[in-house]
C-alpha cells in the first residue's frame, strides 16, 4: 500500500513539474514574440543574429546537403533501376529533399551549430550576471538576447532549407547524371512534373516551425541554465537533444496533417 502511494505521489509531482515547465516555456516564447512586436530594438541586433544563425551555417548546410543529395542519387538510382525507371531519379531526389530531408536535416544542422552556441551564450551571460546587469539598467533582456534570435531563426531556417534543397538536388544530379549516366533532360523534366507548389509550401512551413522550435528551446534552456560551467554545459546538452527530438516529432505530426 505504501509503495503504491509513493508511486502515485511521485507520478503526481512529476506531472506538476512537467506542466509547470511547459507553462514557463509557453510564457517565454509568447513574451519573446510580444517584445519582438512591441519593442523590436535596433535592426542591427536582428541582422547580427541572422548572420550568425544563417550565413555562418551555410558551409555546414551546403556540405551536408551535397552529400545527402549524392547518397539519395545513388540509392535512388539502384532502386529505380530494378524497375527500369531511372528517369524518375530527379523526382525522387527532389521530392525527398523538398518535402522531408531539406527542412529536417537543415534544422538538425542548425541545432548543432547555432542552437548549442545560443544556449551556451545566454547561459554564460546569465551566470556571469550580464542579464542582471541589463535589468539594472532598466533594459529588457528579451529585447537584446531572446527576441532577435527567435525572429532571426524564423527568417534564416527557410532560407537555409531552400539552399539545402537546391544543393541537394545538384548533388543528386552529379551522381545520377554525371556518374551513373541518367539522362539530364529526364532528371529535370521528371522533377518539374512531380514537384508541386504544395510540396514547396509544406517544406517552407516545416522549416519556419523548426526555426521556432530551435530558437525557443535553445534560448529557454540558456536563460534558465543552472549554476556554473556545469549548469551551462547541462543546459546546452539538454537544448540540443530536446530541439532535435522535438523537430523529429513535430515533423511527423506536420507531415501527417499536410499530406
Amino acid at each position, binding site marked *: 500500500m505504501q509503495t503504491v502511494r509513493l508511486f502515485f505521489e511521485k507520478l503526481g509531482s512529476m506531472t506538476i513539474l512537467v506542466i509547470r515547465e511547459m507553462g514557463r516555456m509557453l510564457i517565454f516564447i509568447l513574451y519573446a514574440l510580444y517584445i519582438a512586436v512591441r519593442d523590436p530594438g535596433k535592426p542591427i541586433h536582428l541582422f547580427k543574429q541572422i548572420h550568425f544563425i544563417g550565413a555562418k551555417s551555410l558551409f555546414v548546410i551546403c556540405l551536408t546537403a551535397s552529400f545527402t543529395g549524392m547518397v539519395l542519387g545513388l540509392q535512388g538510382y539502384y532502386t529505380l533501376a530494378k524497375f527500369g525507371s531511372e528517369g524518375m531519379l530527379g523526382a525522387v531526389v527532389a521530392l525527398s529533399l523538398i518535402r522531408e530531408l531539406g527542412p529536417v536535416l537543415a534544422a538538425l544542422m542548425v541545432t548543432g551549430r547555432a542552437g548549442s552556441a545560443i544556449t551556451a551564450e545566454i547561459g554564460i551571460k546569465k551566470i556571469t550576471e*550580464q542579464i542582471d546587469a541589463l535589468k539594472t539598467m532598466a533594459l529588457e533582456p528579451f529585447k537584446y538576447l531572446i527576441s532577435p534570435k527567435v525572429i532571426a531563426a524564423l527568417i534564416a531556417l527557410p532560407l537555409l532549407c531552400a539552399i539545402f534543397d537546391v544543393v541537394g538536388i545538384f548533388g543528386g544530379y552529379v551522381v545520377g547524371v554525371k556518374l551513373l549516366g541518367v539522362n539530364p533532360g529526364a532528371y529535370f523534366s521528371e522533377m518539374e512534373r512531380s514537384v508541386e507548389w504544395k510540396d514547396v509550401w509544406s517544406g517552407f512551413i516545416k522549416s519556419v516551425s523548426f526555426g521556432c522550435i530551435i530558437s525557443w528551446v535553445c534560448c529557454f534552456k540558456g536563460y534558465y541554465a543552472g549554476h556554473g560551467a556545469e549548469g551551462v554545459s547541462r543546459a546546452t546538452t539538454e537544448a540540443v537533444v530536446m530541439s532535435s527530438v522535438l523537430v523529429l516529432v513535430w515533423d511527423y505530426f506536420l507531415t501527417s496533417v499536410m499530406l
Partner: protein
Amino acid sequence: MIKLVDIEKSFDSQVVLNRLSLEIPTGKITAVIGPSGEGKSVLLKHMIGLMKPDRGKVYIDGDDITVMRRWELNHVREKFGMLFQNAALFDSMTVFENVAFPLEEKTRLSRVEIRDKVHDALEHVGLKSVDKKYPDELSGGMKKRVGLARALLLNPRIILFDEPTTGLDPIICRAIHQLIKDTHTQFGFTAVIVSHEIPEIFDISDNVAMLYKGQIIEMGTPDEIQRSEHPVVRQFITGSLEGPIHFI
C-alpha cells in the same frame, strides 16, 4: 529612500533573509557588512527587484516594488546604478561599447556626444587607453572601475555596490573606496555597499548595518558599530575566531 519591511527569502529549505527590516537614508553611504554567505548580495538584489521576497515589502521612494509589473519596475530602475561583484561587463563588447551601451540604448545623444561622455567617465575612474580592450583583457581592479564608470554614466540617484573591492590588492582596494567617496561627494547619490573590508569600509560610510542570520542585528554610524558591545559585531570586526559566529 529605500525601505525594506519584514523581508523573508528562502532557497529550498535554507532561510536567507528572516523578517529583515532596513531603512537606507537618502544621500548617504550605507555599508552592509556580515559574514560570507549570510545573504548580503541577496539583500542588494531585493532592493533593485532582481529578486522577489517570499514575504515582505520593498519600498523605493514610497512605492512597493514587490507588486510592480515589469515596465513599472523598469521605471523605478531608472533611478538605480549597480556595480556587480564581478563587474558583469558584457564580455562580447569592448570597454568603450560597454560604457556606451546604456547611453546608446536610453538616450538620443549623437555619436560624438556619447564618445565624449564615455571618455569623461573612463577618465573619471582613472582609465585611459583601454577603449578597445575586451573585459577578459583587464585586471580585476580595472573591470570594477569600468563597471563603476558604466553605473555612473546615467547619473543614477541610487547606486548599489556588491563587494566592489573583493579580490583586489590593498592599494587598488583603497583607490576604489576613495573613488566611491569622491564620486559620492560630487554627485550626492544614495549608496549601498556590501563589503567585507573591515576596517576600511568604516572610513567611507555614513552608516553601517550588520547582517547576521537573515536579520540586521545592529545599525549605526561607523563609530557606533566599532564601539558596539554586541558579541557578533565584536567578533566580526575584530576577526576573532572565538565567539558566536561559527565558521565550520
